């Protein structure tokens, strides 16, 4: 199976909190990619709250991931057409399934099958929460995208999500080097080492020996998060993304790129309620341009830069 892997780019869209617009953005980014003539497949991995199909006006699809897990159908057979050229999707089952109920072997099998899907881009829409199945799926991606909104609860959940992802990644790295329990041991005894957050944990690991530093730098090189800020209302909201770049590095020890933002627009809600694909029916909306920009940024690995000026003496 591994040998038949296609050259597709996997995007994962996560962020910890529900209601920040992950599924909406996944559907829009996918539509934008497909409209460029790129074969794109969307996977709804929100097993507890599946609704990605609704963004394309599709009723509960006949085939879902439940068929993959329970009836052992290959992914190609449960792929449904979205109604937009070049855009396919794999739906999640209705309320019958929980992310937690997928066991380790099933998860690895799903990952193998995703990697061998015949598609240029694969966008995985993740559910809320920080369950290992969610963080592992996020880590499967070549482009790891965090969607958040300018509210304190979204940001809190986002930090928790990033920390869980990072911790999971560290464990995986050191496991492959035969140091499975190292990270957990250090973290458990963090007060003895004077470690107060992830950034200091990284510092501790990198300083412990040249070998550790090499392992870490090699494995983490190129690891970067793309931050997308959704439902922004003010220029100050837009600035949050710029601040998050600095905060991710300074407090969490992780590099982040501010891929872009998308503003709050009542039209989005209307469009979703009408069950019409937003990107096709609202070409005049500024949101469409903003989503195109942020998607193109993610493709190119670039970000937006907001002037680091103080506004009226404050941020």
């Amino acid at each position, binding site marked *: 199976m591994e040998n038949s892997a296609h050259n597709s780019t996997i995007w994962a869209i996560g962020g910890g909190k529900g209601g920040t617009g992950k599924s909406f953005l996944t559907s829009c980014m996918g539509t934008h990619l497909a409209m460029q003539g790129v074969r794109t497949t969307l996977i709804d991995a929100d097993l507890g709250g599946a609704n990605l199909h609704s963004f394309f006006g599709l009723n509960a699809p006949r085939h879902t991931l439940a068929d993959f897990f329970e009836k052992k159908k290959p992914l190609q057979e449960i792929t449904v057409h979205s109604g937009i050229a070049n855009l396919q999707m794999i739906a999640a089952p209705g309320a019958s399934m929980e992310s937690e109920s997928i066991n380790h072997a099933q998860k690895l099998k799903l990952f193998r099958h995703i990697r061998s899907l015949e598609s240029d881009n694969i966008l995985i829409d993740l559910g809320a929460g920080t369950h290992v199945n969610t963080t592992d799926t996020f880590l499967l991606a070549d482009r790891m995208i965090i969607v958040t909104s300018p509210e*304190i609860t979204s940001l809190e959940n986002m930090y928790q999500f990033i920390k869980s992802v990072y911790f999971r990644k560290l464990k995986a790295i050191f496991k492959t080097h035969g140091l499975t329990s190292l990270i957990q041991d250090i973290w458990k005894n963090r007060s003895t080492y004077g470690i*107060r*957050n992830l950034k200091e944990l990284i510092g501790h690991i990198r300083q412990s020996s040249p070998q550790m530093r090499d392992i870490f730098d090699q494995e983490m090189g190129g690891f970067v998060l793309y931050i997308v800020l959704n439902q922004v209302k003010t220029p100050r909201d837009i600035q*949050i993304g710029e601040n998050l770049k*600095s905060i991710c590095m300074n*407090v969490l020890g992780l590099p982040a790129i501010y891929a872009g933002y998308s503003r709050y627009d009542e039209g989005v809600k209307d469009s979703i309620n009408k069950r019409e694909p937003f990107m096709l029916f609202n070409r005049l909306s500024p949101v469409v341009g903003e989503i195109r920009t942020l998607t193109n940024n993610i493709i190119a690995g670039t970000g937006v830069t907001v002037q*680091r000026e103080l506004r009226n003496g404050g941020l």
Partner: protein
Amino acid sequence: MEGCEKYFDILELPYDASVEDLNRNYNYLKALYSGDAIEITALNSDFSNEISRDYLARLDEAYTKVREGMENRKTTSAQRKVEMGEEVRQWLRQIDRFDGPLLKELRCRMGVELEDIHAVTRIQPEYLACIENEGFSAFRAEAYLRSYLIEYARFLGLDSNRVLADYLPRYRAWSEKDRKPDVVEVGYVLTKSV
């Protein structure tokens, strides 16, 4: 400024940053990390008061170090302009008028590179070269040329008023005669390290 890299990193600055960049980033980071913006508050214990204090102390230290480094760099260069040898001084005495080629010759006699002037004045070397070869079309207005000239003259230790009095009439003569409104040889976007 060897050994200063970690301070630049704390300040999130490129190593060739200017004093303005330094001040802007320092004020920005200080306001961000000592403030109560939601993106900071949401960090909870990951950015406790204690961690915040440590960070701000490191930030202040980095600011002081980089600032000192920049001032030293300025003094070092400032000392250079005093180094006008007696030979150059002699030569300069017999000069009755400053124009572009003469400024260039003086600079070369003093062993100063355009990059040296750029390092202190932050004027892009292309513009400095345009002063010397009298590529007047590079300057959108006299005001730009004037302020560049002052900096240039000061760096070489010249009387800037005298340089202006000699040089600017040459620009004005060109401006009246040859200026084509649509010719711009050098872009006016001030390059800035982000």
